[in-house]
């Protein structure tokens, strides 16, 4: 059973655009929602995270929007750059364990 559904699977955006990656979860007991960024050949790196009592969190060009009633959250990347090209994973945490989405391969074209 996939508890965290992520879309789209891949995304191509022009430099300066705002890619949006969406995730939906099923278990309302999840209490922490991180996003990870992964470059080829590297381990995932924690990018930004949010707790369910907050509707939005910004860190630099990265923003998480959280909709608790819809059980959805999304990642927005402002002023996207070619260096943002990577695979992005959403996740949800419960009891010190993370459940991951299947990933989105993002390509930013110059």
């Amino acid at each position, binding site marked *: 059973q996939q508890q965290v559904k992520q879309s789209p699977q891949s995304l191509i955006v022009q430099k300066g655009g705002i890619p949006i990656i969406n995730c939906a979860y099923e278990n309302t007991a999840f209490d922490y929602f991180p996003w990870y960024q992964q470059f080829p050949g590297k381990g995932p790196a924690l990018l930004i995270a949010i707790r369910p009592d907050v509707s939005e969190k910004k860190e630099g060009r990265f923003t998480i929007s959280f909709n608790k009633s819809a059980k959805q959250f999304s990642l927005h990347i402002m002023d996207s750059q070619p260096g943002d090209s990577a695979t992005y994973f959403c996740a949800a945490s419960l009891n010190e364990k*993370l459940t991951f989405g299947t990933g989105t391969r993002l390509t930013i074209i110059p």
Partner: protein
Amino acid sequence: DAGITQSPRHKVTETGTPVTLRCHQTENHRYMYWYRQDPGHGLRLIHYSYGVKDTDKGEVSDGYSVSRSKTEDFLLTLESATSSQTSVYFCAISTASLNEQFFGPGTRLTVL
């Protein structure tokens, strides 16, 4: 990489052979995790540890065992490797806030 190393970084082995992957941390974190990453599946939890000699199963634990005899080391063993265990394996640790997990560089394992 939050003081996490994994060894080996690459390994090719044959079906039926035992394989042990090692994760080493330098920062004395209590929680450690083993994940596998496969296309279309994201990262899936294999086993985790919440202290020395304290381990528990994750989502995809069949065919894997773990051991943690020291805080800094978490070992993943494939008793008899199968081709379906060809994957990239990541170790992770949790910081004091528990929810924040940081990943090692990964081990690419190929089972022929």
